[in-house]
């Protein structure tokens, strides 16, 4: 027997769960929360291990030192590090029905990161039935990113930096949640392998209509701890090549600097910025980045 009945579209009443309304409300909360943010910039790389998180945290600290009000959202939910690198102690975020206060770093950067929320040495895990977690894992992580944007009391910010995890999926999530995303900073290392992976990410950004503000080449040589001279480390010229291929700017090159890494591990970004070759390179990058944003 074939039942004859109206279709979803023909039944004109609203859906009882008002799912579209619920999703729209989520989107509105993001927009309302970020109404006081003058510029939102994502930092990404198509490749892991290029020093993206340290670079992002250092850019945030450098901007704060210039008197800007800066937020740092760590969108790397699985491998969060922004709080530690920024020198934030993971305890006691104030929360009430209107939202959650971000942590504040010694440099004055407002930080939200999963490493403030989960126990040390604990991998990010979700409450879930059975073993088919791949079905909803992406939705959960996107939901967490949405909540970090919408439920954290960011307040008035000159700049919100979003540190994206390796890969491209989170950029797509962010672009959907934040149609007003002001731009993207792309991090690479000099090698051809990095260039190929990062180039794909930049192509995706172009497809999504996201403006690339510039490229940063990290680990561009080795800064000698004794004399400060920068020597060759990796072969390649990926930063400039990517900038040329994708019609954008090379914001700068940061040498690998063991002193800088040591300061970052201790959350002493101010020391890193003031006393290392890498810090000086990042200051120059911030000059160009702020110019590109405005």
């Amino acid at each position, binding site marked *: 027997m074939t*039942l004859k*009945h*109206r279709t*979803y579209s023909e*039944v004109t*009443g609203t*859906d*009882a*769960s*008002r*799912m579209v309304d*619920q*999703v729209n*409300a*989520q989107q509105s909360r993001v927009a309302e929360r970020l109404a006081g943010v003058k510029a939102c910039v994502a930092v990404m790389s198509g490749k892991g291990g290029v020093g993206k998180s340290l670079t992002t945290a250092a850019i945030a600290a450098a901007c704060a030192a210039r008197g800007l009000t800066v937020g740092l959202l760590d969108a790397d939910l699985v491998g969060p590090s922004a709080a530690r690198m920024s020198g934030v102690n*993971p*305890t*006691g*975020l*104030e*929360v*009430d*029905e*209107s*939202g*959650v206060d971000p942590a504040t770093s010694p440099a004055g950067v407002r930080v939200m990161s999963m490493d*403030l*929320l*989960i*126990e040390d040495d*604990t*991998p*990010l*895990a*979700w*409450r*879930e*039935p*059975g073993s*088919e977690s791949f*079905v*909803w894992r992406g*939705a*959960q992580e996107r*939901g*967490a990113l*949405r*909540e*970090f944007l919408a*439920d954290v009391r960011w307040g008035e910010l000159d700049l919100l930096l979003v540190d994206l995890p390796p890969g491209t999926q989170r950029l797509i999530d962010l672009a959907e949640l934040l149609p007003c995303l002001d731009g993207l900073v792309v991090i690479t290392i000099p090698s051809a392998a990095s260039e190929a992976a990062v180039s794909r990410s930049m192509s995706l950004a172009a497809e999504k209509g996201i403006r690339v503000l510039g490229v940063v080449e990290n680990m561009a040589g080795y800064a000698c701890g004794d004399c400060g001279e920068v020597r060759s480390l990796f072969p390649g010229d990926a930063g400039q090549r990517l900038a040329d291929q994708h019609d954008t700017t090379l914001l700068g090159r940061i040498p690998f600097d063991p002193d800088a890494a040591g300061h970052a591990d201790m959350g002493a970004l101010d020391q890193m910025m003031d006393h290392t070759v890498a810090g000086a390179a990042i200051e120059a990058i911030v000059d160009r980045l702020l110019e590109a944003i405005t």
Partner: protein
Amino acid sequence: MKFLCIECDEQMIFEQRQLPGDGTLAAAFRCPTCERVVAMLTNPMETQLVSSLGIKIGGREVPEQPLELVRSEVVGGREDAFVDAEAPLPVEVRASGAGAVVWSLAAVERLEGVPRFVRGMVKRIYADYAKQHGITEITPEIMDRARSDLGLEGM
């Protein structure tokens, strides 16, 4: 998602939602014409998929809490991650004046068994639920009812 009573050609209206505690969900829909009620039953994976989106089948009854998805779905949250406003103590709450929702001692004791990562949020959800339903005292029975109605599994 809409439910249609084919016999009456009427859209059915959402009646009730229950989470029995085994990861499944039941939502009842009633035909406004013939009063027939049907139940939609979802398995744990279907239930999880919907909750992962941060949306509620049947609509949202109480306001969404900050970081609700993270606090309710993440395992291994820091006990000291949050400092929630309004720590619940029955005597203090009872003294807070007419019209306030009060907590029975048993309810407070039960709340103290909830992991601190989610406790403040759960407390606000129960209080919102009580206000929505004109309930003046939150007891363990009311908490059970709210858990089932709102889908607070694991809280």
